């Protein structure tokens, strides 16, 4: 096998999940030459909602109306939570920078600066979140205003029942009326998948046909809800046009993952990130990493066809947890998969999970992960940075439980920001020294 010259870059980003995407964007925006590799992505499972902080302390299930106040309290009480290593202002800047990328590329988001909002889930239960896709925002407002709502679902689409949502949400929002309708041109298919419907909805003809089916059902409804099928990448346009055609504001409710809102983020990212100068290797796994005498990393891309290698001045590890592949659990212990970095973890497998799946305290295994210094560098067993130029971000970090704290996206984006900035600062300091 011949070895072509390695691809050279400043920063290699391992991972194409929420943290990896954010990191690549931040790196490119800061003028770093950036290569990114990832195998799969948890992003396709994302609901579209971007949480900042919803619950703290989780054992008391205390919900925060103001996520910033929640972060402040958490930083005090869980000083090794990754948020505690950051300034509030930087967390906000990180979110804004990330969101504006999607905004510019057809997936706008909305929030209230100092407030979590209540949003819907496909089982009908509501939950708090921070940034909401524009396509779902009308639902947030309509629920608050208790407007009469027509909620539709579709024949031959599984896992989403307007009737169920209306029943479950009934105490909070009694004015929701469910209806089951057919999807235009869906009759030929045995089962309808949201992704297929979303792509169909990009056509004005289909939108018109659907609007005509819905129109007679609207009656006194002031708002229309649907499962998340309003277009794949040109959602803004699809939503606005469709609302005009039906004559009332429309909103989406995310369906059970993997679903359209996650796919939108993934497709939009893949389409526009190269325009930022990021070289995206996807789907590709990094099989091995070596350190060169000058401190740079040489990474081998696992691939049956090419034998790409990447030589980078630094690495940002955003390889996720068990689902993402950054961590692996054997029968006896948890390991980090690429560098065999020490993983903070409970003493034995018997302590990984609690007896009640829904225990408010969360499962101890969810707090397992990499411990880092204040510049987001993972530590070795002696408590020193394992490598001077290896950084980590996202859900692989220890001392957080994004699922219970409702901080998944916020944590991924904010820590990516902090890690990229730490790498930039390190380079500048080096250059100054030289």
């Amino acid at each position, binding site marked *: 096998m011949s070895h072509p010259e390695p691809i050279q870059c400043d920063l290699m980003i391992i991972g194409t999940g929420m943290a990896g995407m954010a990191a690549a964007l931040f790196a490119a925006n800061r003028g770093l030459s950036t290569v990114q590799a990832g195998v799969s992505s948890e992003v396709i*499972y994302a609901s579209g909602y971007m949480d900042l902080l919803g619950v703290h302390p989780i054992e008391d299930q205390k919900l925060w109306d103001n996520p910033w106040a929640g972060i402040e309290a958490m930083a005090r009480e869980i000083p090794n939570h990754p948020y505690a290593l950051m300034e509030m202002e930087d967390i906000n800047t990180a979110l804004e920078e990330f969101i504006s990328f999607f905004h510019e590329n057809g997936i706008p988001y909305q929030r209230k600066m100092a407030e979590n909002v209540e949003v819907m889930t496909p089982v009908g239960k509501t939950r708090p979140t921070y940034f909401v896709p524009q396509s779902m925002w009308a639902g947030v407002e309509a629920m608050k205003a208790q407007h009469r709502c027509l909620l539709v679902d579709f024949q031959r689409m599984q896992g989403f*029942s307007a009737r169920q949502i209306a029943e479950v949400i009934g105490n909070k929002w009694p004015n929701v009326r469910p209806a089951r309708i057919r999807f235009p041109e869906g009759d030929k298919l045995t089962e309808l998948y949201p992704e297929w419907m979303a792509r169909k909805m990009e056509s004005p003809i289909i939108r018109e046909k659907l609007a005509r089916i819905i129109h007679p059902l609207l009656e006194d409804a002031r708002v229309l809800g649907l499962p998340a099928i309003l277009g794949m990448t040109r959602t803004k346009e699809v939503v606005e046009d469709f609302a005009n055609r039906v004559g009332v504001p429309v909103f989406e409710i995310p369906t059970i993952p993997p679903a359209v809102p996650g796919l939108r983020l993934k497709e939009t990212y893949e389409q526009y990130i190269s325009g930022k100068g990021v070289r995206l290797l996807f789907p590709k796994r990094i099989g091995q990493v070596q350190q060169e005498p000058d401190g740079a990393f040489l990474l081998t891309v696992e691939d049956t066809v090419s034998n790409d290698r990447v030589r980078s001045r630094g690495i940002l590890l955003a390889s996720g947890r068990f689902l993402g592949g950054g961590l692996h659990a054997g*029968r006896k212990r948890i390991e980090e998969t690429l560098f065999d970095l020490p993983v903070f973890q409970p003493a034995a*497998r018997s302590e990984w999970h609690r007896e009640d*799946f829904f225990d408010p305290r969360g499962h101890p295994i969810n707090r397992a992960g990499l411990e880092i210094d204040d510049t987001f560098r993972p530590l070795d067993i002696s408590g020193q940075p394992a490598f001077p130029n290896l950084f980590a971000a996202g859900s692989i970090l220890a001392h957080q439980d994004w699922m219970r704290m409702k901080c998944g996206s916020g944590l991924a984006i904010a820590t990516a920001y902090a890690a990229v900035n730490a790498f930039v600062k390190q380079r500048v300091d080096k250059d100054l020294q030289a």
Partner: protein
Amino acid sequence: MAFPFFRKKGSLIKTRVLIIGGGATGTGLARDLALRGVHCVLVEQGDINAGASGANHGLLHSGARYVSKDPEAARECRDESIILKQTASHCIEDTGGLFVAVEGDDEKFIADFPGYCSHCGISFREMDIKEARSLEPALSKNIIAAFEVADASIDPFKLVLENITQARKLGSTFIRNTKVVGFKKRKGHINTVNLVNVQTGEDLLIEADHVVNASGAWAGEIAALAGDPIDMIYSKGSLLITHSRITGRVVNRLRPPSDADILVPGGTVSIIGTTSARVDALDDIRPTAAEVDLIVDEGTAMLPGLESMRYIRVYSGVRPLIGTQTGEDDRYVSRGFDLVDHSGKGIENFVTITGGKLTTYRLMAEQTADLVCHRLGVTAPCRTQTELLPSAHAWKWTVPGIPSKEWLKDHKPDDFLLCECEMVPRSALDSIISAMGEHKKQLDLTTIGKRSRIGKGACQGSLCSIRVLVYLYDKGHLQSDQGVPHLRKFLNERWKGQRVLLWDMPLIQSELKEAIHCGFLSLEI
């Protein structure tokens, strides 16, 4: 069959025989009596198979397992397994079985085994090691002896559902979620039995001519409530279900009964176990990580593939063993059963039937029914020795592998799969719901899970639970927000069997499940 009076507070039901316990013994007895024309009421504190009948190995014993220590139990198993293979063949997979020894196992025991078997009249064939390994390639290279026996695999859920279905068709009543809490006696006669619905808290009184305590490991507690305690030993055993089937046959380790020495295949999976640990109480029986490790480590000697195997579920049951606390290994307490006639102790219309095995449930039911009928003056003979157990179509959905075969063979275009791992379509749910008859009102996910493969596949119920919930709402079986607690209960029920098995792939799966149900749906808050 309907019981409108059941809704009223403190309502009273009259029946000839009250059976306590909806396991194999209680349901088998209900069927036996019904076939003799005796209507009864069967009460169960949970759902069917809430006890050992829903938490066992599913081995229809040829008897060979007991030849060394318990010849009587061995002979009972031999005879009963032959009867069941003839009368309940649709609940049985006649796999055949092997006994194998590995290097280091007790040579004397191996040499004595044929003699023990002959003594008990258990048929066997010594098998060449090469032949054994070619028949079952999963066996270890280190096997030093192999014998073929007539073991088989039995589906306890199907068995029990079929028994109760026939009993109900013949006019008996089954009441779920209702617990016996006390007895009212007068002059050595139980007049009424006090019960409470564990879901609604409503009281119920049952007046019966005769009361049968078929409550398995709980038999001691119930007998004590009635005023004549029985000594019971609680021996907990845990079992692991593998993701795919490892062998065609049942495989037993050829040594005195010990940990992790039986592998029982069934449909598309295999079950390996068991352990044995004395416990003091019956509530909250859960498998531990240490038991899982013990089973995997021990089982590997016979079947090396177990080390890297993917496991989908672990569960524990408590063996109902009668006896005093001798301190010996509980595996040596007799597996024979006991029919206790409490009339000797001054309660004239009360018997207890406990101990025994799933394999001998029919015989236990027969002997109990004989006694009860004698008391009631009923002369009709037992019919379960020869009469076939009818097959109610709906229960086929409990068997691993069957649903997918059926569905692939022939299905309507809109008969979507609700569960993709185990291939359970909508039509399966429809037939389960209609087969539940008057119990339809108490429908929830957990009840459906018991009667199907829903939630038992690799995804651990992450997605099928939601699809089934949607279907139940759409069909009008659920109202307001009651589906949310149902979903939580269902996932927690499944969780019990997954929690200590989570490493490698299953851990990834459970992380996804938690991300969906907590991270996204926020069911925990």
